């Protein structure tokens, strides 16, 4: 299952290939010699304490932070050497969902979702989409994406007027319209209640169903255990890479030791409050593969 030990040469069969990547923000080292490979269509959960480098890893994959060292290939393409045009093309194949949703609150739900497609257009075509709407074909895709996340009736509402969980589903709908090959979700459910979190995770898994790779940063270890592969980061490096069965208390202690957490940081609400199906590891189709 795990492909963490595959060959170092770039291969198009790999969605992501990170080799000795280093990133610093001033004196703070965010990623220290991090290496990781993810095969296409794999589902990976990334865990780690705050500041372990989870979000920085995602920023590095979309090249929104400069690398201090190492090599990073996405779909077999070394993104550190790409020109602006090629970077844009590479980003078009990566869909991202954030903890804070990051929709444009003043725009309608429909236009926010349509941006998944509009962001790939020429400037002129994008301007016309802003003024006259994105066109019939995109509108149809927007409607079907919103239908899939259960928000079809909110297409004309201001995105900022929606609840947090609804905004996150709009973000997932944007992803469905974008049709990326690699989906990165950065703490997508950290701000959501358990039931809404279930909806969002299920929607994410569905979005990845048509052959996309899914990598999710999670605070909640119990949620991470539903993924077939778990990668744990600590101080900017991989300290665990394996199946949920291998992730025992000893490993967790090591992962979270730096900020003094001794017990398994499985959140209380996930254990006590979540309806039974959420504890079923086979749900969402995450482990079906």
């Amino acid at each position: 299952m795990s492909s963490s030990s595959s060959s170092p040469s770039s291969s198009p069969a790999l969605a992501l290939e990170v080799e000795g990547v280093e990133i610093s923000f001033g004196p703070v080292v965010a990623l220290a010699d991090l290496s990781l490979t993810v095969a296409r269509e794999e589902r990976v959960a990334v865990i780690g304490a705050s500041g372990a480098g989870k979000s920085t890893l995602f920023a590095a994959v979309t090249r929104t932070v400069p690398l201090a060292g190492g090599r990073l290939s996405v779909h077999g393409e070394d993104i550190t050497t790409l020109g602006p045009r090629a970077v844009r093309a590479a980003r078009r194949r990566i869909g991202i969902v954030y903890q804070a949703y990051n929709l444009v609150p003043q725009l309608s739900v429909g236009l926010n979702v349509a941006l998944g497609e509009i962001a790939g257009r020429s400037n002129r075509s994008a301007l016309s989409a802003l003024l006259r709407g994105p066109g019939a074909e995109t509108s149809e895709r927007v409607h079907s994406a919103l239908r899939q996340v259960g928000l079809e009736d909110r297409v004309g509402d201001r995105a900022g007027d929606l609840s947090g969980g609804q905004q996150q589903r709009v973000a997932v709908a944007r992803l469905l319209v974008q049709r990326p090959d690699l989906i990165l979700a950065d703490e997508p459910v950290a701000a959501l209640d358990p039931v809404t979190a279930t909806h969002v995770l299920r929607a994410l898994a569905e979005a990845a169903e048509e052959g996309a790779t899914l990598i999710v940063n999670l605070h909640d270890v119990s949620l991470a255990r539903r993924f077939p592969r778990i990668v744990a980061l600590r101080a900017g490096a991989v300290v665990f890479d394996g199946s949920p069965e291998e992730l025992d208390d000893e490993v967790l202690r090591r992962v979270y030791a730096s900020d003094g957490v001794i017990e398994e940081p499985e959140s209380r609400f996930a254990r006590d409050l979540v309806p039974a199906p959420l504890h079923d590891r086979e749900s969402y189709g995450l482990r079906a593969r």
Partner: protein
Amino acid sequence: MASGHAETQRVTGALPGPRTPVGGLIALVAIGLVGFSLYGVDFDLVALLSGAGPIERFVSEMFPPDVSAGTLRATGRGLVETFQMSLLGALLGALVALPLAAAGTADAATIGASRRTRLAGAVPYHAARLVLNVFRSIPDILWALVFVVALGLGPFPGMLALAVHSAGVLGKLFSETLETVPERPVSALRGIGATRLQRLLFGRLPQAAGACGSLTLYQWECNIRSATILGFVGAGGIGQEILVAMNLFDYPKVATLVGATVLAVLAVDRLSAALRQRFAA
């Protein structure tokens, strides 16, 4: 320390204590500057008090204000012209300001870009900033003088003067508004491949639109006040009527014109405030 509690440091207020060296220095410099300025402007309280007599005479000559049909007509004409100049000045200014502000808005997209790309991005940025600075730093009355010389007397050069100055002020404020919108939605668009223009159109502009509308209304308010002055250099508006009446020593007419101006400015202030509140909502 005198009380023997060397370890416990006193909690101070927001102002620097006068006993700290920095506080003392600031106080000295401030006093020095005030004295220097008082000397420079020949500040004379006696002259001000003894001037009260002529001022009183001037004011009493204004009463009763002239409310003849001719004066009221001139007042109305002047006010309408002032209104037209200020409105067009603000609108035209905002239209010119927006593209300049967009070009003069810093964007965090230069990460990993080559030196040449970064340089190519810096040229329009600094060019736009320079144009806006020139527009803004020259007062509208000087712009009015320039346009009156070029185009002759009347409200048109006045409106142009207001437009250029408004463009400078609004351009700076717009670009600051565009730069300070919440960054996350914008970088989310960048993450999915949106170009710089697309990030501006879909990320920054929608988030800044309300504030920019409100700023334009405020600029219109300022323009109404400025437009009354521009008439003094022959650039139209009610100021021109005031200047003529002053030169003819027709103080009752001046009273009517000035009173009407005060009322108009107050009315526009209220209207603009109400509209801006709606923008903010």
